[in-house]
C-alpha cells in the first residue's frame, strides 16, 4: 500500500520560489568576472577539476597564488605545445597526474581564462545552503486561495440548506434544497468513485533523493540522455547505474549551494545520496575504481499503467514528437517526481482527439496523406481519426 507523504504542491511552489529569490539576490552581490568564470568553469573544467580537491586533475582553488597567469593561459590553450617547449612545470604536472594529457581549449579567450581564474580565486561560499534550509523549515504553510473559496462556498451552501430545513416553512424551498443536496451528493459521490485507482499526484519516496530539478532543470541534461530507450522502445527506461556513473564518476559531491529545499537536504545530505549511488555501482571513490560489488537501485515506480493498457513511448516521442512534459508535467522543476497527469483512459482519448498527426516529412504517411487529401480534401487528421480511439490499439 502506498504510504507516502504527499507534499502540498502549493507549499512546495512557494518554497522553491523563495529559494530562487534568495539565491538570486545572493548572486547579485558576487563579482562580475567571477560569475562569468563560474559558468565557464562548469562548462569546460568541472568534469576534471574541483576547486578544493583533486579529481582527475589538480584542485584549482586559489590557483593564481601558485601559477603565473601567463603560464596558465599557455597551458590551458595548448598544454601539449607547452610541454613540447620543454617547460619544466608543465612536464612535472603532466607526470604527477599519470601522464594523462589535458584537453586543449584553444576556444577560450584570454578574458575567459581570466574570468575562470577570478572564479577560482574567489572565496567559496558556504553560507548559502544553510541559510536556505532554514527558510525551508519556516516555510509558509499556506493553503491555496481557490481551496479557501470553495470551502467557504460549501459552508455557506450547507448553512442555507440547514436554515431551509430547520427554520423555513416554505415547502418549495425544502424541496428545492433537497434536490440541490441530492445533486451535490451524486456529483461528489460520482467524482469520488471515478477517482478510485487514479493516482494523480502520487509522489513516492525514492531510495535515493534524486532531484530531476537539479539534473534536468538546473543542469539542463536532456531527458533522453538518461531515459534513452524512450525514443526506441515502449518503456522510457529507468537509467541503469552505469549511465549515472558517466557523470558521477567525476561528480562525487555537489557544489556548496546545491540543495533540495523541499526535503531539507543541503550539501551534506546530497553528498550522502551520491554515496548511495556509488554503493550501487560498486565504485570506490577513494581509489577511483570499481569493486565489482554491485547492488541494483530499487526505485519506486511512479507511473503505473494497468497491465491491460499498452503504451509505447517511442510512438509518442519519436513519431509524434511530443515533449516529455506533455504527460509528465514540469519534471525539470520537480525535486521529487510525482504523477502529473491522471493517466486515465479519458485523458488519453482527449489528447488523441485533439492532437493532429504529424505527417509531414515522414515517408510512412506519404501515401496516406496523399490519399486523404485526394479523396476527402483534408489536410490534417487527428490521432483519433487515424484509429487512435479504437479499443484494440491499446488493449491487447
Amino acid at each position, binding site marked *: 500500500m502506498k504510504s507516502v507523504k504527499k507534499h502540498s504542491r502549493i507549499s512546495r511552489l512557494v518554497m522553491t520560489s523563495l529559494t530562487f529569490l534568495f539565491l538570486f539576490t545572493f548572486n547579485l552581490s558576487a563579482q562580475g568576472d567571477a560569475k562569468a568564470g563560474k559558468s565557464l568553469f562548469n562548462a569546460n573544467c568541472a568534469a576534471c577539476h574541483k576547486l578544493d580537491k583533486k579529481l582527475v586533475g589538480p584542485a584549482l582553488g586559489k590557483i593564481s597564488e601558485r601559477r603565473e597567469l601567463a603560464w596558465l593561459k599557455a597551458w590551458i590553450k595548448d598544454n601539449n605545445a607547452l610541454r613540447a617547449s620543454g617547460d619544466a612545470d608543465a612536464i612535472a604536472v603532466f607526470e604527477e597526474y599519470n601522464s594523462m594529457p589535458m584537453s586543449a581549449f584553444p576556444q577560450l579567450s584570454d578574458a575567459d581564462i581570466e574570468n575562470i581564474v577570478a572564479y577560482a580565486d574567489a572565496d567559496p561560499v558556504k553560507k548559502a545552503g544553510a541559510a536556505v534550509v532554514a527558510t525551508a523549515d519556516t516555510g509558509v504553510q499556506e493553503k491555496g486561495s481557490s481551496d479557501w473559496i470553495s470551502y467557504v462556498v460549501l459552508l455557506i451552501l450547507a448553512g442555507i440548506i440547514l436554515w431551509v430545513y430547520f427554520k423555513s416553512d416554505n415547502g418549495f424551498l425544502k424541496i428545492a434544497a433537497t434536490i440541490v443536496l441530492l445533486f451535490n451528493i451524486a456529483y461528489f459521490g460520482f467524482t469520488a468513485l471515478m477517482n478510485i485507482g487514479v493516482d494523480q499526484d502520487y509522489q513516492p519516496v525514492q531510495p535515493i533523493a534524486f532531484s530531476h530539478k537539479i539534473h534536468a532543470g538546473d543542469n539542463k541534461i536532456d531527458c533522453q540522455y538518461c531515459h534513452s530507450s524512450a525514443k*526506441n*522502445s515502449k518503456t522510457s527506461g529507468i537509467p541503469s*547505474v552505469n549511465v549515472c556513473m558517466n557523470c558521477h564518476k567525476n561528480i562525487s559531491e555537489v557544489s556548496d549551494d546545491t540543495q533540495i529545499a523541499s526535503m531539507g537536504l543541503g550539501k551534506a545530505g546530497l553528498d550522502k545520496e551520491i554515496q548511495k549511488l556509488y554503493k550501487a555501482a560498486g565504485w570506490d571513490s577513494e581509489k577511483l575504481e570499481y569493486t565489482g560489488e554491485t547492488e541494483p537501485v530499487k526505485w519506486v515506480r511512479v507511473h503505473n499503467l494497468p497491465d491491460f493498457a499498452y503504451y509505447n513511448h517511442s510512438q509518442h516521442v519519436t513519431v509524434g514528437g511530443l515533449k516529455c512534459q506533455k504527460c509528465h508535467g514540469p519534471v525539470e522543476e520537480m525535486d521529487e517526481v510525482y504523477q502529473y497527469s491522471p493517466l486515465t483512459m479519458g485523458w488519453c482519448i482527449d489528447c488523441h482527439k485533439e492532437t493532429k498527426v504529424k505527417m509531414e516529412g515522414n515517408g510512412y504517411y506519404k501515401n496516406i496523406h496523399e490519399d486523404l487529401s485526394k479523396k476527402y480534401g483534408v489536410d490534417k487528421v487527428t490521432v483519433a481519426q487515424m484509429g487512435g480511439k479504437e479499443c*484494440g490499439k491499446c*488493449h491487447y
Partner: protein
Amino acid sequence: MASNRKYWKSVEELNENSSIVAKLEENEFVSDIATDEFLGDKETLEESSTSRRDFLKYVGFSTAAASLAACEGPVRKSIPYVIKPEEITPGIANYYASTIADGYDFANVLVKTREGRPILIKPNKLANGSTNARVQASVLSLYDSLRLTGPKVNGNAISWSDANGQIKATLAELKNKGEKVVVLTGTLASPSTEKLIANFAAANGNVQHVQYDALSESATLDAFQEVYGTRALPNYDFSDASVIVSIGADFLGDWQGGGFEKSYTAGRQVATGKMSRHIQIESNMSLTGSNADKRIVLKPSEQIFALINLYNAVTGENLPSKATPKDADIKNAAKQLKKAGSKAVVVTGIQDKNAQLIALALNNALASSVMDTAAVKYTRQGNDADVQQLIADMKAGKVGAVISYGANPVYTLANSADFVAGLKKVKLSVAFASSEDETASVAQYALPTPHYLEAWGDVQISAGSYSLTQPTINPLFDTKQFQDCLLDWSGSSEAYYDFLKNSWASDVLNGTSWNQALHDGLFTTKVEELAAKSIDVAAAASALKAETKGGAFELTLFASTAIGDGQQANNPWLQELPDPLTRAAWDNYLTISQADATALGFSNPIQDNGAINGDYANVTVGGTILENVPVLIQPGQAKGSFGLAVGYGKTKAMKSEMQVGVNAYTLAKGLKLVQVASVEKVGGTHKFACEQLQHTIAGRYEILKETSLTSYNDSSLDPKESWNQVTKVSLKHEEVSVNDVDLWDDQDRSIGHHFNLSIDLSDCTGCGACVVACHAENNVPVVGKHEVRVGRDMHWLRIDRYYSSELDATSEERTENVNTTSDSVSDYYNLEVPAENPQVAFQPVMCQHCNHAPCETVCPVAATSHGRQGQNQMAYNRCVGTRYCANNCPYRVRRFNWFKYNENSEFDFNMNDDYGKMVLNPDVVVRSRGVMEKCSFCIQATQQVILNAKKDGRKVAPGEFNDAVACSSACTTGALVFGDVNEEKDEIVEKKADKRMYRLLEAIGTDNNVLYQVKVRNTEEA
C-alpha cells in the same frame, strides 16, 4: 464438385438417426448451464439458511470491501540494470539465428528474445528454415521446471568438479584395464561433436560410438551405405516431382527427420496450373496420406509386395512377389511413374534394408531427378545392429562404461529391461540428460545438459549445409554441455565454444567469417553427387518374400504430430495440440478401421456434450501385452491393421497432468515399428478429449470447397458458377450474388492498412505449427484434458479436419437400392463405405474478422468492436462475460475463460509455474477468468511493424506483416498469407483476386477479412 460431396467429421455423423448430432447442431454451448440445479428446487431454496436480507448484507459488504481495497494500489518497484548490456533495450526484441537438433527434429530457426529471455521460435527463412509444432514448442521446454537442476550421483546431488573428477578417475582405471567405453548418443549430425568423440576415443583407448534412434531409419541407412558407400539418407526435392508414389512413408510428418513439406507444396502450386500427383499407399491414416491425391489402403505386409509389384510394373522385370488386393491401382501408379520418367519418385517408409534397396533401384531405374544423392541427409544416424550388440555386450559384462547423451533408451527400447540389466553390470554409467528421465534415473551419474537455447553447437542437416546453434539465454540451471565434459575427460582445458570455433575455422569456413556464419545461422558448401553401385534386386526381393509373413492384424507404431518421439512429452502446448486427424489431444490410442471395430465390438459413442468415449483393449505383440489401450475408430485405417503412437506413457520427470497415454515403445520389438499383433477387448470406458465435434457445421457443407485440377484448368467453366459457386439471393426479383446485397452501409477501407489473411486449403498440410505459434505469441492458456473434452479448449486457431466421400452415381444408386430394404442396413452401408477410405481436408479456422461482425452488434458493453484496419477487436478489460458474442458467431472461434488459467493450481501448466511463465509474451495481456478471447490478427505484431516503419519514416515493406504475424510466419508451406490489401505489392492482393478465393459461409454476409482458397486435388489419373 462441391455439390455432390458430403463432408463429415466423425462416423457418428454418417448415422442420420443420431439424436446427439442433431442436438449438437442446435447448441453453441453443449452442456446446459446448471441454473436449475440450484434454482429449480424450491425446497432446498426455502431450507437455505441464508435469507434475502443476509444475502443483501453480504453483497453490500463485499462491494464496500472491494471498493475500499481498490482505493490503494500496490507499490511497484522499477529495478534497472546496474550495467545495461549493450544489446538489450527493455521493450525491444532481439533475434538470434540458431539451430535445433535434438536428435529428432532438425531446423534452422530464429529465436526471439525479450529482456534476455527466449519467447518465440520462428523459422529462419533466410537459411531455408522451417518449423513444425514441436520446434515451435521447444521454447517452452526450456522453461520446464522439472529439468535436472544439477549433477547427481546415484540420486544424490554432487558438484561438477567432484563428478568430473570421479568419472575421470574411473575412465583412467578402465583405460588401464583396456575395457571398452561406449558413447551412446542419439543422432548428433554435429561435425564438431563427432570430432570431439574421436579425440575422446584417442585419449581413452577402447572407445566405441554407438548411435541410436528411437524411431530408427537404420534399414534405409544400411541400404544407402551399400549402394552409395556413405551412411546417410537420400534427400528429395519434391518441388521437381510430377508423380510421387509413397509406400508407407509419412514424409509430411517425421519421416527421416522431416522437412519435406516445403518442397512438396512448392511442386503443387495450383496457380501454375500444374501439380505433382501424389499417390500414397499406407495402412494408418497419416498426415501425408490425408494430403495425397490418391490414397491406397494396404496392410503393412501387403505394402512390401506392393513395392515389388510396382518395381516389376515399372521395369518390366519379374521379381518374386505376391498379389495384393490393390494391384490394379499399383499398375496404374506404375504407368504414371513411367510416363513422368525422371520427374517421378518413389519413397518408402518400410523398415527393411531390402525394401529400401528396391526403392533406390526403382528411383535409379526411373533416373529420378527428385532423389538427391549429393546433398544427402544426416538427420537419422542410428544403427540398430550396434544397439542390440551393445545390449548383448553389456549383459555379458564386456562393457566397462556407458556414456549416454541425447538418448533415452530405458524409455524407448522394447527390451528396456535387458538394457537396464546390462547397465547394472557396467562399471561406469553416465547419462547426460536435460531431465531426470528413465535413463538418467538408472545411470550412476545423471549429468544435466543445457537446452539447445542455452548451448553452443553445430549441425550438418544435409551434406554441405552447416548450421550453428548459439545460446540465447544464460543457463537456467547448473548445467554443462556434453561436449565441455568430453573435452575435460579427454584431458583438454579448452572450452567447447573455442573448440567449435577452431574446428569450424579449420574444417568448414574455408577462410570466411565466423561472425557472419553465426549471424546467418547457416553456412553452405558445394557437394558432389555420389556414385551408385549396382543393386541386386532379385536377391532383395526373394529375401523380402521369404521374410514377410504378415498376420491377421498388423500394428504400425508411429510418431504423432504433436509429441513426436516423446522427448518433449512434458510440454503442455504439445499435449494440448490435437492430432490433425483424430482431433484428440492428451492421449494416444489404438486406431482401428470401422469394419474391424464392428467385428471386434469396439465403438466410440458420442456424448451429448460432444465428447467421445471409447473402449479399452489389451494389445499383444509377441508375448508382450500392453494393457488398457483406448481404441479410436479411424476412417481410412486399413482393414486388419492398427496404429498406435509412441511418445506417450512417460512417467519420469513429468508433471502428473502430462502423464497420459501408454508407452507403445514396449511393442517396438527389435526397433521395428511394424509388428504382428492381436487385440482383446477389456472392460472400462475411456474418455477422449476430441475437439472438433463440439463445433458442428449444422449441414452447411459449403464451408469447405474443393475441386479437381482438371476443373480448375478448364477455362470453359466459370468458377463462380461451378466449383466456387456463390450463393444467390433474390433482389428486386432478380437472382444476384449474395455479395451484392448488404444490409449495412459500406465504409471506406481504402486508406491506411487493411489486413486480410488468406488460407490456401491446397497448401495446408495440417501440421499444426501455426497452432503452437499462436499459443506462444498470444499467451493462449493450456486448459487440460478435461476442459478440452467438454469443448472448452482455448485454441485461437484450430485446424478443422473434414472427411469426405464422393457420392458418385454408383454409390448413390447403391444407397438407393439398399434403402428399399431396411433402415438399419442403409445406416450400416452409409457408415461403412465412406469410412473405408475417405478424402481429408484441413481447414484452419480462426476469428474471421468480419467487416460486418455479428458478435459486435450483440455485445451489451461494446467490448468487441471494429478497427479501421479490419480487425475485430476484443477489449478484455471491458468484457463482462455474457458470451452473447460467442453465441452469435457463425464460426465458433470465440473462446471463453471459464476459469483463471494462470497461477491456478487446478491448471498446473506453464502459467502456474515460475519458469513456465518466463515464456509469456510481455506485449500481450494474460486474460483473467470470465472474459471472452479470440484471434486478434496479432495486432501487437502488426502495430509493431507499423511503428517501426513510422520511426524509420518509410512505408511498410511487402511481406513485412506476413513475417510478423505468428501463424503466417510459422507456416512452412505458405498456406497462410497475411498482408495489407491496400498495398499493391503485397502477395495478399493477388490472393484476394484469385478465382479460388471464397469466404466462409458467404451467404451470411459477414464480409470476412479471412479468405480461403478452394482446395484443388490432382485427381486425374494420368
